[in-house]
């Protein structure tokens, strides 16, 4: 950005292209608390009726709170698994003399780029065999596994930036490799761990296909499947209700995004799927 060119043409150009996107998101929020006359785009009354799903269970659906709880459980446990497994494996690959290290590294790298959805049929059948179909734990394990290569990759990259001398100093001070990792190195990569944690949580919170295929049952339903089923139900078309559920669903995401925008941008820019 330099002072020699006018900036307003750029802002104008991008502004025009961005209008539809802004409109969609603005109306998402506006429509949940207002009504407008048919055919009109301007709201004419404020109402709370679209939020009725919070206190009354919609016919044929699980309670929104069950779904919320399931989603939270799903996202949190997935995140915990991803964090613990990738922070250990990432360290081993970055710093330790593991046998077949090059092979593992290549493996992680390939898997990191590998499109996981293509495996879903086999995974579906595996869960059937294991008797974990329609359970939260099954879909959690699957989601965590599929996120792992990315997590390990990111963590390995962050461990690589920790100066070797810190580890050497730790060893000279008499600490075992495990202590060095856990007391000296892990604290250095805390920012990475929190970024990966937020990322995994959001990924879990938003996940749709896996729960849809692997745990569609009402008892274990997550919000994404809940909302999709609501929208797909042709008998009860109510856009304002869909949007209200949608806002309820997206709110934690937006909050996390606003708070951790910088960290998320660094990790989204770091070569994620998409």
């Amino acid at each position: 950005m330099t002072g020699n060119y006018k900036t307003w043409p750029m802002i104008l150009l991008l502004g025009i292209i961005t209008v539809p996107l802004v409109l969609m998101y603005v109306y998402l929020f506006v429509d949940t608390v207002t009504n407008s006359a048919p055919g009109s785009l301007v709201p004419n009354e404020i109402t709370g009726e679209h939020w009725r799903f919070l206190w009354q269970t919609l016919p044929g659906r699980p309670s929104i709170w069950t779904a919320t709880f399931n989603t939270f459980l799903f996202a949190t446990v997935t995140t915990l698994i991803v964090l613990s497994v990738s922070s250990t494996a990432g360290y081993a690959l970055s710093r330790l003399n593991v046998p077949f290290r090059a092979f593992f590294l290549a493996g992680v790298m390939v898997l990191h780029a590998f499109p996981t959805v293509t495996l879903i049929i086999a995974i579906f059948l595996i869960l059937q065999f294991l008797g974990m179909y329609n359970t939260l734990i099954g879909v959690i394990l699957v989601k965590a596994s599929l996120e792992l290569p990315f997590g390990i990759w990111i963590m390995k990259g962050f461990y690589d930036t920790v100066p070797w001398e810190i580890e050497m100093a730790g060893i000279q001070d008499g600490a075992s490799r495990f202590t060095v990792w856990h007391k000296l190195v892990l604290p250095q990569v805390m920012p990475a761990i929190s970024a990966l944690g937020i990322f995994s949580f959001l990924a879990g919170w938003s996940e749709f296909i896996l729960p849809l295929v692997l745990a569609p049952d009402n008892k274990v339903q997550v919000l994404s499947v809940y909302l999709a089923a609501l929208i797909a139900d042709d008998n009860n078309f109510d856009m304002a209700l869909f949007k209200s559920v949608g806002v309820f669903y997206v709110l934690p995401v937006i909050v996390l995004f606003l708070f951790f925008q910088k960290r998320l941008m660094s990790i989204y820019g770091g070569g994620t799927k998409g």
Partner: protein
Amino acid sequence: MNGSKSLGLMLLTPAIVFVLLFFVAPVILTAVFALTNMSTATGITGGAYQVTQSSLRKLAESYGQAELANTLAETRYTVNEEGLEAIAADGADARLVAEMRAKLGGRSFEKRRDLESAIKTLNSRPRNTRALKALSDTFHRSIVNERFESADAMLRATTNLGVALSADQKSALADATYTGWVWTTQNFTRMIALPDTQRTLINTFIYVFATLAIFNTGFALVLSIATHYMPARPAGIFRAIWLLPRISPPVLYVLLWKWLAWDTGFLSNFLANFGVAPRNWLLDNPTNAWIFIVLINGFVGASMGMLIFSSAIKAIPGSLFHASEVDGASRWQQIRYIILPQLRWPILFITCYQSLSLLTSFEYILLATEGGPGGATEVWALKTYLTALNNYAGNLEYGYGAALALVLVVVGVVLSLAYLKVFDFKTMVRPPRIEQ
């Protein structure tokens, strides 16, 4: 001390277990399942043997055993030991039993009337017709709709019917009546033969190339260059807005587009002011459906390129920009000669990476059009999903679906190996500096 080695393995073990269970095993199993005809009908564990109308039809058509099929389809009356014991247990006259065993034992009758007339010729025949009827019913034998746990059990039952089978017929019958899954290469011949496949392939290419070219690289470039020429604040706001589609859960994000496109939605309402009749823009015709599919995916895809290109532009030394401005370069020349050359590698990276993920993603299409209208937007990955896992269709064809998925898996493996080549793998595997 080999502390580092064993600690390393220990720290890696959980990751290895997860990867084996949910990456390696699925890849292998996809290949295995692709060679079966597994479906909801066959189940995923073993099957049973059952003579049904359809298996008899199969026996006649696929195995050329029309005669056998007809024989089996008929209801038969066979006097055998089993039946004789049954009537004895029911309290039939011992003389009658003995006489039947002697005179009719082993004989089969096509109709009950035939058996009844045969019994009537006996000396110790039952007096009244009702008893006669009950008696002959006991000898009623048919295996239609009966389930057998093994082929042997079924063949024994067939023999009991009084139908003698040749070895050929036995194996044909066993094959035709097996309800479980079997090994087959038919999935692949079917994939190649179906005109549908070609259509899907074309759709997939349209989808990947249009999205990739227009948004994931093209528009991402526009975004990153435009924000580069802006003050920090508006640039940050634009980047945050364009990141929204990516962080929004797909279900919600597609809902927003539906609101925009549906016949009571924003677009219809808005265009009504200009006399355009309201309609569902998302599904009314293939062209519009495609436009929306590309937009929906593109708005999500643009943000990754935007972030990567932006940081690449940020890495260009400021002095380069200043120098070129002093030299009197126009903005367009600056973009052309300074920015774009620096973005060659990032663009290659984005293209490689996102073509792979676009090729295999179907989430947004599933949510938006489900492949419609009339399969116009059905891409390979979506077809795979719909074949094997969509519940409306009734019969889920796991085998055929796995064969379709296998194509993607192979493409995925090849492309991600290529991805490995693009990267500087040597520096990645530099040996650890602490040698314990």
